[in-house]
């Protein structure tokens, strides 16, 4: 009944959806690694990134794939401000405070966006819309291929940054042992602000890719992808970036499969069912070591 073509299509569409989740989840993971906090409002940065891309695109008409840099840079700034004003004062207090603070941030960002851009669904048209490339037996839209390549480039860049540069090494040191990092003279607060900024930039990249793929967006779109990204890092293990990548791909494919076989309404619920099953069986995630 289901031929291989359909299955391949589900997997490929899942890969593309997975890319957006991977970027979000990697950002969350980076922030978690360094600061040991979880920001539930991470999806709002995706939403802001999406709107910045769309606005710049409407104003200038540049290729939206180039605007990804603008929105990433803007979000580094916003992320740094949020970290300094909101998260730093509550570092080290009860962990529930982070969740509550995130709710405040969700209120602020969603509704500021609704005030600025209105709360209707919007979408933009990519210059490559309608072009598709035949790969084997299926026709893949060119946009999806570009998105997969862009994500890979960003992830490789992040890898090189974390492994090869001095700042990247300092960041990893902070994430491995905060006190030890302080002792060897690393400015851990600078690392906090930097990791938060980079995490937000990754969310902005995810937002841009969301927009250019022709998906609709509105100010309230952020919360579900953010929670899914969080589910992914639980699935992949807190603090593990390879785990985030594999988890993201599994989610993307599972979601598309569920939407195809069970019907569209199950798209969101299936990710939480996976999450709950994983948490019940293995509370530390698939690839995670004992967290804290």
């Amino acid at each position, binding site marked *: 009944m289901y031929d291989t073509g359909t299955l391949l299509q589900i997997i490929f569409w899942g890969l593309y959806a997975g890319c957006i989740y991977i970027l979000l989840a990697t950002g969350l993971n980076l922030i978690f690694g360094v600061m040991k906090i979880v920001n539930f409002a991470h999806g709002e940065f995706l939403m802001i990134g999406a709107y910045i891309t769309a606005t710049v695109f409407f104003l200038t008409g540049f290729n939206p794939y180039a605007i990804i840099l603008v929105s990433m840079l803007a979000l580094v700034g916003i992320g740094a401000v949020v970290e300094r004003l909101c998260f730093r004062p509550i570092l080290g207090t009860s962990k529930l405070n982070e*969740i509550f*603070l995130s709710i405040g941030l969700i209120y602020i960002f969603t509704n500021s966006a609704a005030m600025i851009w209105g709360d209707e669904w919007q979408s933009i048209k990519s210059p490559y819309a309608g072009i598709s490339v035949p790969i084997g037996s299926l026709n893949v839209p060119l946009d999806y291929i570009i998105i997969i390549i862009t994500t890979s480039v960003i992830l490789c860049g992040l890898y090189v940054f974390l492994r090869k540069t001095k700042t990247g090494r300092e960041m990893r040191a902070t994430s491995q042992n905060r006190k030890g990092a302080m002792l060897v003279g690393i400015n851990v607060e600078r690392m906090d602000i930097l990791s938060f900024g980079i995490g937000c930039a990754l969310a902005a990249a995810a937002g841009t890719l969301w927009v250019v793929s022709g998906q609709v967006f509105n100010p309230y779109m952020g919360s579900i992808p953010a929670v899914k990204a969080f589910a992914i890092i639980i699935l992949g293990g807190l603090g593990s970036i390879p785990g985030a990548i594999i988890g993201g791909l599994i989610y993307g494919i599972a979601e598309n499969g569920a939407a195809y076989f069970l019907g569209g309404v199950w798209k969101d619920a299936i990710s939480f069912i996976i999450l709950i099953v994983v948490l019940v069986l293995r509370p530390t995630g698939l690839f995670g070591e004992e967290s804290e």
Partner: protein
Amino acid sequence: MKFERADIIRYGTIAVLAIAAVAPFLLDSLYILNLLCLMLIFIIFASAWNLLAYSGQGSLGHAAFLGIGAYASTLIATKSGITPYITIFLGAAVAAFIGILIGLTCVRLKEWFLAMVTFGFAIIVQTIAVSLLTPLTGGWDGIASPRLVSPDIPGYQLIEYYSILLITIASIVFIWYILRSRIGLAFAAIRENEIEARAAGVDPVRYRLLAFGLSAYLAGVAGALEIAHIGYITPEIFGVDLSFWPVTYVILGGLCTLAGPIIGTVVLTIIWEGLKMAGLTFGRYVIVGVLLILVIIFLPKGLVDLPNQVHKWWKQYKKPKPEQVPVLE
């Protein structure tokens, strides 16, 4: 004459009850009466959330219990014809049952994990309500629900208001009773230090499940009341928004205190309506968000703690600056 803390609480409670009893006559408007009803219902809902938080479990999906209670009560009332006054409590029992089932998956989880799983459950429940259970729930369109008091009776709004007030008072007294019993002590012990609690002979799993069940029951009562008050139910009741509201109310008022949810709900409702009169729509949420963050950072114990904090700030302000010690030549 010096007032003791206990006196302040006693007279304060009497004053609040008196105001609540005469409020419909002082503010003679149907809009405000409706608002008061919803406010009371949200006091129950926020208190239910707070009860769970009291045992150290912060849920982000409490709308699930609100909705299950509401749907169960509505369905029982329409199928059997029993008055909503009884089905409210039957529906809430269904919510409590599901709450304990959800609690079973959560007993090993803490903080974000728990928040995530509860958030996920609200979405799963909503999905089931609009897909598998559509014949019962009417899908996204929703179904009509029997009113608490039939609109044919003259002055039905007032009867409804006083019924809701009574149920709210009963719920608060119930929570007060739980919190000062051994159960409340066990909840606090688990919240503060699970290992020590276990060493003292408290079984965390049992008490966590109990907290889940009680909290879900009260949330179910709140949901069933809300729907019996409005007279219509849609799956929107499982929405993220409704899961976040009790959190906001409780944090603003004071986490893990009995008065916190009440003060938070009243204060926030007044601010909310005030901003609405000022003509703000999205701006209201932004202001509430900023308020929430300010309270978390500067008033970690909520508005309940405001008098103490003001006293502390005032003492610091009045304290003379340390004199410059003369330096010996």
